[in-house]
């Protein structure tokens, strides 16, 4: 979609008032992205169970349009839910690379934030941000499902600030 996302802002902004059009395009694009965050159904450790509780009926993040996809190609969002070990690190990196742009990362729980209770282990990555760029961190060991819902809202806020404009 190079025409809409890359060329259009360039052309439009050269006209007077074109930036208003770009802004409203921004709104539509960001609205669609934030309303339809499809996470990769992927769990690492304990936090994955709380993530499943979020899929479950009490918390139900389908309400926000979050709809788990099994394949990274169709996912927009990856939850690093649990301890990332050194053996797994390269695989998670590859999963991230397989996802199509735009892609977002939520680091869920102490383990993936910093290594958590395993901070002094020989086989644990001390924070997923050593491997991937992270958008939202959730604290907790494991975080409550409500915290996961909040992280999605926070990510939506973040997405709304994005722009396709070339003027930064």
């Amino acid at each position, binding site marked *: 979609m190079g025409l809409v996302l890359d060329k259009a802002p360039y052309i439009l902004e050269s006209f007077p008032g074109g930036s208003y059009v770009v802004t409203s395009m921004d709104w539509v694009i960001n609205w669609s992205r934030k309303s339809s965050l499809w996470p990769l159904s992927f769990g*690492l450790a*304990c936090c*994955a169970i709380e993530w499943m509780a979020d899929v479950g009926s009490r918390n139900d993040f389908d309400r926000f349009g979050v709809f788990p996809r099994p394949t990274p190609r169709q996912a927009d969002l990856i939850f690093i839910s649990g301890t990332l*070990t050194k*053996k*797994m690190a390269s695989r998670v990196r590859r999963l991230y690379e397989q996802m199509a742009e735009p892609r977002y990362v939520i680091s869920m729980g102490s383990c993936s934030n910093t290594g958590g209770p395993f901070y*002094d282990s020989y086989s644990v990555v001390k924070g997923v941000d050593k491997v991937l760029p992270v958008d939202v961190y959730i604290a907790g060991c494991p975080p409550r499902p409500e915290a996961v819902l909040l992280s999605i809202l926070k990510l939506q806020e973040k997405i709304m600030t994005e722009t396709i404009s070339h003027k930064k």
Partner: protein
Amino acid sequence: MTETLKNTGFEEMTLNMGPQHPSTHGVLHLLLKMDGEVITEARPDIGYLHRGMEKLAEKRTWGANIALSDRWDYIASMSNNFAAVLGPEKLMNIAVPKRAEYIRIIMAELNRIASHLIFFGTYGIDIGAFTPFFYAFREREMILDLYESVCGARLTYNYFRIGGVSADLPEEFVPGVKAFIKYFRPKLKEYDTLLSTNPIFMDRTVGVGAISKEEAVDWALSGPNIRASGISFDIRKEDPYSVYSEFDFNIPTGKNGDCWDRYMVRMNEMSESARIIEQALEKLEPGDIMAKVAKVIRPPAGEIYTHVEAPKGELGVYCISDGSTMPYRYKVRGPSFVNLAILQKMLRGLKIADVVAVLGSIDIVLGEVDR
């Protein structure tokens, strides 16, 4: 390689299942060699969640190890807590107060129900039915609410202490459990109509992945997996720990050791657990919840192997103390680790659709496999 393949000159296909796959229950990696859809060789590759727990245990005090134990089998943390406290208690010869013992048993059995509910839900997804998952989670959330009222956590409770439990039950807990059991019993029938007796489900599971008695013992399976093969092996009866000898309950067993038997053993175990909880609630009397234990825990030098019947099977802890505040060696015998090993033998000759059925029916948790 099969004979037909050799004769035709075609090659086997190697399929990497996992570490990210919707139905490997975490980060298990299965290396499958296949002739079409039929598996000729299977090799589980584990360690993607190896967190070095046993090494860490040697750097943590005995008390702090209970917190680590929450993360072995994170679906049934209470049973892990149980296994983690039994060893030091026996080494230090602590008599746990009666009330604490009953509370422990209520917690462990509720956790067994919660764990089997997750099995029920995820097994449905493995077989292709999504809806049971949501029904199972509805009931599981109720158990988690009860836990939350006691210890404030939903998943990693850190509730047991060496010599007792960390907090007494709040007022609403006992009526809450009673109400839950009353509500839960009819739900078991609902699950049966939803999944257990569904013809397609039976078609997928009956006769698939059968384990004979001899095999089950040879591979040292435990928990529902060995019971499904017709061997009534349950640590709670075999080597009663805590006060399990006071309770009256049955051990559900299967006949053929196939996926459906393993599934049904778990479903029946839930109602047995409910029975144990009811009896424990009857016996619960006011009293202490902690024995008199020194602030700094230094078990005398010695070694012990204690085991409990966790929802997945025999969870053993082999701990060696050198008289200091930290364990000298802390080996965890995770039931999932041992149960998973048989997979390489079972999968041969099955179809790829059966892989998920068999893997799901063994009910593994990767946190315990890799530790």
